[in-house]
């Protein structure tokens, strides 16, 4: 069985590499909590590249405008149609920010409207149980960014009802952006929801 490879999407606009520690942290969590074979190193994949199709789950983040070139948009559209899943996180945690405005527009254009994902969705129970929906981040609770605690993630659903684009305004990129060794200082591992995203992508 080929191991799961965590892929970070590289796009030409903005700062795609704004959260370089997130991949290693999530890889560590997947290996720590599950028996899913996982590659120890993540990869970076261009959104316009045919290599995108080798990674059915791709994580994107950034602070700056998220605008896709024609080549990126074409490849991403085909990627989503064939069953790929994008997880896009707003590193600004600001619904008034440029990343949110541009990313939601681009993603809606490619995958259909983003709708609030109900907190009873299997995403929140496929491995760890999150009865209240997406866990809040410290940035939300501290009033930074848009000063909101977002009750829901947003998603575009494919024709079979599965998530094709998962969009977060909660800034998990900041929440999970630390060295995996630092997990031992936390009473509750805040990357557990990241494991749910990976497990959901691998099974639904």
């Amino acid at each position, binding site marked *: *069985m*080929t191991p*799961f490879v965590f892929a970070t999407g590289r796009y030409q606009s903005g700062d795609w590499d704004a959260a370089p520690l997130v991949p290693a942290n999530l890889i560590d969590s997947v290996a720590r*909590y*599950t*028996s*899913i*074979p996982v590659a120890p190193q993540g990869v970076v994949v261009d959104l316009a590249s*045919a290599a995108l*199709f*080798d990674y*059915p789950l791709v994580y994107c983040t950034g602070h700056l405008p998220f605008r896709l070139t024609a080549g990126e948009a074409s490849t991403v559209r*085909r*990627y989503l*149609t*064939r*069953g*790929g899943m994008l997880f896009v996180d707003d590193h600004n945690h600001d619904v008034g920010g440029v990343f949110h405005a541009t990313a939601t527009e681009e993603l809606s254009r490619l995958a259909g409207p983003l709708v609030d994902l109900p907190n009873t969705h299997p995403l929140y129970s*496929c*491995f760890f149980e999150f009865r209240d929906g997406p866990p809040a981040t410290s940035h939300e609770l501290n009033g930074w960014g848009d000063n909101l605690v977002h009750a829901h993630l947003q998603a575009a659903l494919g024709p*079979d009802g*599965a998530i094709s684009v998962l969009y977060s305004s909660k800034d998990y990129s900041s929440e999970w952006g630390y060295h995996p060794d630092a997990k031992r200082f936390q009473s509750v591992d805040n990357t557990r929801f990241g494991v749910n995203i990976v*497990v959901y*992508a*691998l*099974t*639904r």
Partner: protein
Amino acid sequence: MRSRAEHLLRAAAALALGWAIWCGLRGVAATARSATRLGDDPSVLTPALHRWTASDPPASIDLRVASPPSAPTRAWLAAIAALGTVVTWGPASGDTLLATAIDVEPIADPRRAVRVGVAAPAGRTVMLRDVLGPLDSARATRRTGGVGFRVGGPLVVPEAVVGGTGREATRARGTGGDSLLLRPVLIIGRAGWEGKFVVRALTSIGWRVDARLAVAPRADVVIGSPAAIDTAHYAAVVMLDSAAGLSDAVRRYVQSGGGLIVRPAAQHDAGLPAVGAGPPQPGAPTLADSAPRRGLALTPIDTTDTAIVVLERRDRFAAVVARRVGAGREAIEGYSDTWRARMAAGDDGPRAHAEWWGRLVSAVAYAPVIVRATHDRGDPAPLAATIATLGPPTSPGPASDRGGGPALPWWLFGAIMIALGSEWASRRLRGAA
């Protein structure tokens, strides 16, 4: 004494002449029911059948056809033959009657796909159609003795038309056929892209799927409502990789009639005798749209066991094989990560991936037949049915040769002439007038 003999000869001649006259009169009467030859033009044949049913049929009917007569025409002619009419039939001059037969068999496919086999002479074009119109066509080959079609949905009055589209075409008509009871498919394996996309593939073509995908020790992601592994619950079980603890259940399931698809590495968990596998072979560098599985890594299956049937080859390697196990069937699939063909092999990748998995499941699935009660038995082999009903075809001959009135025997004329000549000569020799 001589005079008495002359009287006897004269009486014999008179009797023979009387018999000849009786024969002649009977022939005239029979001429009213004379032999009839006609073709298969419905505008002529159908009114004639009506007429012969309502009044005396002819003594004989010779039907010359461009194609085997339809089932109603055959039955009608058989009924007329039962009344004493001699019915013969055969090809009209210059025509050849085509031996054709159709067989429609349901496939274990949720879209109610069917497999249609048509027997036809080599080189002839076979068109498959149903009441909604033409579906497909192909040329019959000598090797197969006909043509095989796979239709992805139900057929309403399927018909194979062989040898053109006019009256010379032979039409074999099947029935919609029986259907199959299809239970869900169970997918067992570890969480990963392969399991996810096999579930999607089978779901997209209509299969109901239960899945148990292991994420961690004692933690599975469950899709649907997995039940006990037996033929009452599942049409097929797909074991993508190890599924420890299920070997007894899977073995019992297959031996009692279930279908299993298993990867070489998972064979030991299936509880069945393992088939050997060779060293993994890399795929082509790129995944082509036209042959998406060429780009996949392959574990070749050992085919030395004569009970194994190869379902798919890649170059000299057996990629997918099947065998019977007890009352069930097992397919061993050697490709790795078939999801890559879905994702990377062109825009048709998802559909092709789903169809391929659907065929694999269909090949092994346990699917009890639901017999459909119908009076329509179709006309699956019209030429054979015509021969069975009316006898073998005959060559056309003069109509008067068959079934006319009784002819005057040639020897009767000779006997009359001999009797009269002898009587006359006797009288001349003895000088009587």
